[in-house]
């Protein structure tokens, strides 16, 4: 490439049109967003606090549940919507080992829950909902502060809490079966 051609190319580039009209009017989409009343956004601190509170409530709920006896067996199946997956800082960031274990437990959850009583199933459902809410809150806070180590650790811990709960559901149903066998 000669210097002369190079200069010609740069001169030609400077003549390229810099103003290009979009094929459609983009203003309505912009107006729709900016004319909305400002939504009250969660501050990262508030979101952190809410996430921690929810996590504590979930832990307390799981502990309480584990102290209770379990009996009876039913056939109702839990709503699959409970099985959520969060994209922004999802459980996949924990590695394939965790994800495999989780996928396997999630796949078995409905079957396992069907073996429990309505009351026990409702308790587990509530605990899962609390854990998922905590994960959601922390993910939202992490979108604001992706480098927040405290939040990242909390989130990982919450995923582990979820895994623990899923495992415990399996353990509980095995106990139910043993008692029924007896």
């Amino acid at each position: 490439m000669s210097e002369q051609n190079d200069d010609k190319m740069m001169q030609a580039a400077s003549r390229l049109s810099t103003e290009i009209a979009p094929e459609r009017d983009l203003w309505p989409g912009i107006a729709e967003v900016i004319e909305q009343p400002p939504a009250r956004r969660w501050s990262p601190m508030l979101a952190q606090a809410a996430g921690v509170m929810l996590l504590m409530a979930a832990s307390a709920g799981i502990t309480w549940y584990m102290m209770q006896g379990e009996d009876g067996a039913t056939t109702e199946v839990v709503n699959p919507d409970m099985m959520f997956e969060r994209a922004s800082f999802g459980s996949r960031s924990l590695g394939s080992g965790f994800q495999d274990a989780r996928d396997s437990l999630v796949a078995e959850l409905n079957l396992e829950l069907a073996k429990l009583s309505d009351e026990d199933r409702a308790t587990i459902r509530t605990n899962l909902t609390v854990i998922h809410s905590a994960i959601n809150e922390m993910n939202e806070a992490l979108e604001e502060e992706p480098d927040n180590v405290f939040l990242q650790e909390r989130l990982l811990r919450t995923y582990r809490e979820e895994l623990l709960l899923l495992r415990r559901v399996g353990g509980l149903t095995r106990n139910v079966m043993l008692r029924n066998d007896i």
Partner: protein
Amino acid sequence: MAALLTAETSDYSREMATASSEIQNDEATWIAKAQRSDSRAFEALYRLHIDRVYGLCIRMTGNVSEAEDCAQEAFIQAWNKLDKFRGDSAFSTWLHRIAVNAVLGRMRKSKREHDRIMAVAESVPAAVATSDTGELRDLSEAVDRLPEGARHVFVLHAVYGYSHDEAAGMLGIAAGTSKAQLHRARRLLAQQLKQEGFEA
């Protein structure tokens, strides 16, 4: 005749200067009003700048849909950050910085999504619809086919006239990297255009 032409040219220049000054005055007024949450004033700013912002977005992304999203995102971001605009640089430059950030952010997000779903189909950008004709159109299409980093630097530096320091600042890279990317872009463009018999 020459005197008449000179007088006419002079009148024309004065008119242009007056028009330009009026636009600048209008722009300053619109900015002040928009900073007080006047969305109609902001719409006037949008109408004034959209072609240049969209032009930058389409040249950087090479994709109509992405460029539309980026341009919208840029104006929404500008509205949210208007109180931070102090007039240290021209409003258009300030908008361009926001638009470049919108493009880079969107491309990072697209890349993450692309990686996540492991899409195998290679996306081939459609030719950008511009008013460029003839050899300029060939050059425009060759620019669209440049790799991302080289394209961004070439567009900001060679097409929009930003210095390497300014382009590097917008792209979040070192000025030396900007120069290296420009060199790469020129080399690739020369190869492409030679194949197509371009005589710039």
